[in-house]
């Protein structure tokens, strides 16, 4: 406890204040421009994946809603951005906006179904809907290009000034800027009354109606927001790589993002970002090994995290820091 007793309002204000570590973290995200100019494409992939993990964190980390089909919205965003650039307009920012709207709308429709359920039924429904979307994208060859991917995407300059270059300067700058802006939004959300309500849902689903809370409406809103953010992440991937593939909507991507978030630590905003960075860099380093052996290590990691590190890396670090402060 603090030495000077805080007023309740000052206490809640302090909860949402920026810490030096946070500021240092965001400054560090600028370092790749100078230190790792050869890895900017990878860095932009990390930023995009981090945004995807952040979107799942709102749903899973804060509201406690487990989804095994979150890639559905990433994929919808990815294909929407691709189709928009191909048939309507190649400008990136309007593309992001359209992708956000379409994926938010799909998220809202799906939430009408899933917000009524918990536990096993919820897990099965999100898995089923995710697989269904994957199958639709696969079968709708005329629209999505099926397993060949969506061809003929061309993206204009960002803000009419920055061309997507070979080295990935624009790609990383653009992805990072979008990530940062949406991170600010996510940060606002989790420190809002709505964010508190989501934590209430996670902590005790039974109590919420007894304090007059419309939990299902809250979950629908959280699902819609998370879907919109996931869709923007997907759109970023399409725009920075100028392609959209089936992989973007696959079950594998849903499982991967879950792994990253849990590895980093769910319900902490930064957990998904850290987890995504570790996961993507490791996958890049081990890109030579066969996929099943890559998943062997992921599997071991998952078992280890569940058994020994229940709150992920960030949870472990904050427990260590607390112990260090005590002694």
């Amino acid at each position: 406890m603090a030495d000077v007793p805080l007023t309740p309002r000052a206490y809640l204000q302090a909860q949402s204040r920026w810490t030096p570590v946070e500021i240092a973290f965001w400054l560090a995200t600028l370092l790749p421009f100078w230190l790792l100019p050869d890895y900017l494409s990878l860095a932009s992939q990390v930023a995009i994946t981090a945004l995807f993990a952040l979107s799942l964190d709102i749903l899973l980390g804060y509201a406690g809603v487990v989804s095994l089909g979150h890639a559905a919205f990433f994929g919808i965003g990815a294909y929407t951005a691709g189709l928009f650039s191909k048939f309507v307009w190649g400008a990136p920012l309007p593309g992001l906006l359209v992708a956000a709207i379409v994926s938010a709308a799909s998220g809202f429709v799906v939430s009408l179904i899933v917000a009524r359920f918990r536990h096993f039924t919820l897990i099965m429904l999100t898995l089923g809907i995710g697989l269904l979307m994957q199958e639709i994208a696969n079968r709708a060859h005329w629209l999505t290009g099926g397993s060949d991917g969506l061809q003929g995407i061309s993206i204009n300059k960002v803000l009419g000034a920055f061309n997507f270059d070979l080295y990935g300067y624009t790609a990383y700058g653009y992805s990072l800027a979008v990530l940062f802006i949406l991170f600010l939004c996510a940060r606002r959300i989790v420190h809002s009354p709505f964010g508190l309500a989501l934590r209430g849902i996670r902590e005790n689903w039974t109590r919420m109606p007894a304090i007059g809370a419309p939990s299902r409406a809250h979950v629908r809103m959280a699902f819609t927001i998370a879907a919109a953010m996931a869709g923007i992440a997907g759109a970023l991937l399409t725009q920075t790589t100028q392609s959209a593939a089936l992989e973007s909507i696959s079950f594998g991507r849903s499982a991967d993002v879950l792994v990253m978030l849990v590895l980093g630590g769910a319900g902490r905003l930064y957990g998904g970002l850290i987890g995504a960075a570790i996961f993507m860099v490791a996958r890049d380093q081990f890109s030579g090994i066969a996929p099943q052996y890559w998943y062997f290590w992921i599997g071991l990691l998952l078992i280890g995290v569940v058994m020994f590190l229940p709150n992920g890396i960030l949870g472990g670090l904050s427990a260590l820091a607390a112990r260090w402060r005590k002694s």
Partner: protein
Amino acid sequence: MLPPIFGVLFDGIAYGMLLFVLSVGLSVTLGLMNFVNLAHCAFAMVGGYVTVTLVNTYNWPFIATLPVAFIVTALISVVFERVFYRRLYRASDLDQVLLTIGLAFVSVAVAAYFFGTLQQPIPTPAFLRGSQQVLGLGLGNYRIFLIVTALIVTVLVVAGLEYTRFGAMVRAAVDNQRMASGLGINVDATFAITFAIGSGLAGLGGALAIEIVGLDPSFSFTYLVYVLIVVAVGGLGSIAGSFIAAMLIGISDIAGKYYFPELGAFLIYLVMIAVLLWKPSGLFGKR
């Protein structure tokens, strides 16, 4: 003379029977402990590889390997149950999902390391090859054998649950865990044994599946989806529900692939989502 639709129906029933043997164990353990076990098909795969090894390396007859597949899988599963699963009975669904997905990932890699990533064929015994002509339909011998075996398993499982003391304990624990332990039933041990038998049945299913769908390391995930759909549609903890759901999914999958090949796996996903929307706890579920 019967029209070909009966042939499709027959194949669908055989496939449904296979799905039932694969999934009944998961249904009971989910109903009993509410444990979301996504590694169930990894145990099925163990049974498959036991049979492959015994037939191909040690020249055992296929039929003789089936009980071994059941027993070895049951024994291995009970080790995992004691080491990993039991610690997470009270944990969140998320932790259970993560742990068991992790185990499934590892199982894929281990299988690939020892057996390679290719499909493992086994020579089918002569009497299971070929087919019988019944009213103009060619009914595969292996599928007839599969249906008979699955029916025997069904009868044994139902009889075991209905008429034995252990079965009564399992039913009581599925119904109301608190009351069961209040009555002096050791729910923990009951679960361990049920888990072993359920996984053993999955192992048997894995061995039976080699001839129908093949066996490779991706089995852990490919058939997990089918098994989960069967359990979700049938309702947790319900044997009758699993049986009917397995038939429904088996027939709709085969019929879908036969009549609407362009739909792919669409049909069964739609069946599952429709059933869950209509009855969230499955056709025969209580919760």
